[in-house]
């Protein structure tokens, strides 16, 4: 199988998060960072530079989100960060009630996407984050494909007054795309159909469709979804969605965007299964068919059907 580029220690999305926060906190006194014991060493510089606007509450994620809401009520722009299940699933009700219902702005940055923590078991897998957050009214969802894209998208969205989720992953694409918050990026145009590749799935998708004349749209903002660009580029009615989490989170948006057209959709992503093996993320990719070969075969079958 073609290898999927995984970030080196010097250039991870998490390192970029630390750099971005440290820089923004110098310019925006409203920013406050709240941790629950995760990434304390990576954010040591931020904590040292801004002791009054940073706090590590300890291992209490529900309280972490509630504290962020209280800070937002006092005019701060909070940033909460943890490993995906502990940021999204455990305090899900706090995200819903303390942010969406109150209509407060805040930022939630995860680390450990899907099975990045491939050896740690399902407790540490983050495959359901985007699908469940998509159910929350007003929740913005950003899935960058590179550290630089995170930096660009965070700067655009962090102070927009809405709750915004940033999904950081160990997997990344080799090259940055010219991303803009809330917009699809047209990578290339083709005649046989349209592929929507989400965040770090772009490189594997491009490898999968080598030799196929397809339009490729790059999606780094899941919500709000850019229906306009999809409509303008969904020329044949054949749509393939390739997502890095449980398959299908974007399908309702695709269906809504193209509701007045005859459309077929192939939805590719992580299948809903309890993953019980360890090894590397690449082992899981192979087992789940999320390799260039596996994805390519599914797309070819779909187009030929």
């Amino acid at each position, binding site marked *: 199988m073609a290898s999927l580029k995984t970030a080196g220690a010097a250039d991870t999305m998490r390192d970029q998060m630390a750099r971005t926060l440290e820089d923004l906190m110098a310019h925006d006194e409203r920013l*406050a960072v709240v941790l629950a014991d995760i990434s304390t060493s990576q954010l040591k510089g931020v904590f040292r530079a801004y002791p*009054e*606007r940073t*706090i590590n*509450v*300890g291992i*209490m994620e*529900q*309280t972490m*989100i*509630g*504290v*962020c*809401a*209280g*800070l*937002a*009520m*006092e*005019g*701060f722009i*909070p940033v909460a960060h943890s490993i995906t299940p502990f940021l999204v699933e455990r305090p899900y*009700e*706090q995200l819903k*009630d*303390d942010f969406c*219902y*109150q*209509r407060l702005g805040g930022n939630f940055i995860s680390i450990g996407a899907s099975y990045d923590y491939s050896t740690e078991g399902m407790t540490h897998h983050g495959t359901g984050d985007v699908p469940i957050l998509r159910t929350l009214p007003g929740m913005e969802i950003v899935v960058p494909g590179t550290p630089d894209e995170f930096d660009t998208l965070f700067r655009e969205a962090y102070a927009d007054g809405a709750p915004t989720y940033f999904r950081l992953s160990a997997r990344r694409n080799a090259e940055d795309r010219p991303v803009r918050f809330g917009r699809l990026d047209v990578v290339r145009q083709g005649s046989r159909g349209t592929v929507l590749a989400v965040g770090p799935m772009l490189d594997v998708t491009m490898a999968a469709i080598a030799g196929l004349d397809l339009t490729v749209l790059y999606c780094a903002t899941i919500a709000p979804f850019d229906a306009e660009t999809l409509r303008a580029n969904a020329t044949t009615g054949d749509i393939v969605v390739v997502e890095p989490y449980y398959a299908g989170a974007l399908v309702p948006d695709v269906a809504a965007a193209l509701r007045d057209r005859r459309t077929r959709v192939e939805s590719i992503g992580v299948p809903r299964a309890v993953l019980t093996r360890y090894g590397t993320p690449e082992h899981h990719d192979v087992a789940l068919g999320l390799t260039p070969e596996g994805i390519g075969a599914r797309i070819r079958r779909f187009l030929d059907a």
Partner: protein
Amino acid sequence: MDDDIARLGRLMKTGEGDEKHDPSAYSTLDVIWVLYDKILRFDPENPRSEDRDRFVLSKGHGPLGFYAVLADKGYFPPEELRHFMTWEGILGGHPDRNQVPGVEASTGSLGHGLPMAIGMALGLRMKRRDRRVFVLLGDGECNEGSVWESVLLAGNLGLANLTCIVINNHSSTRDLGDLAQKLGTFGWAATSVNGRDHAAIEAALAHTDERRPAAVVADVG
């Protein structure tokens, strides 16, 4: 004192329909009245003034007593109470900060108010403002894990601008033992009062500790 409570009781009767939460509304009435009448600094004309003290009703159910106090203090016309829990009204079975003037946090699900109040108290500390944050919990609510997470946190942080009131109407399924003593071991300056004795409530709520958050366990029998 009796006149005040009688007047509020009449106001509450204009907003009928929440029989299930009725005891809850009356259990908090004396404490919320004393808080607004004697302790809190606020301006109903400017409900989100930076100079206000903050109050979060964490135990969001049975809010009619709270609504009656807000109406009595001029946050909205008392006539609004007639529309309690109706399609036309702004006063729901749990309070909504985006609809009701004077409501700081939308609550309803238990165990959310204390973490939010801690965030507010921290925010005030960051802004170097000397206003106070009050949060009201029920004893049943103290079964929630998030309550004890945040009890631990506030005690550790020494959030002296925070006061947590627990209305103890003995509705907790689990025996909480001596709550004030428990909160004390978590680093709070905690005291117990008769939740119907206005002078005792006022004295307890007025008290602040220099280094510790304050807790008032108000027993309402």
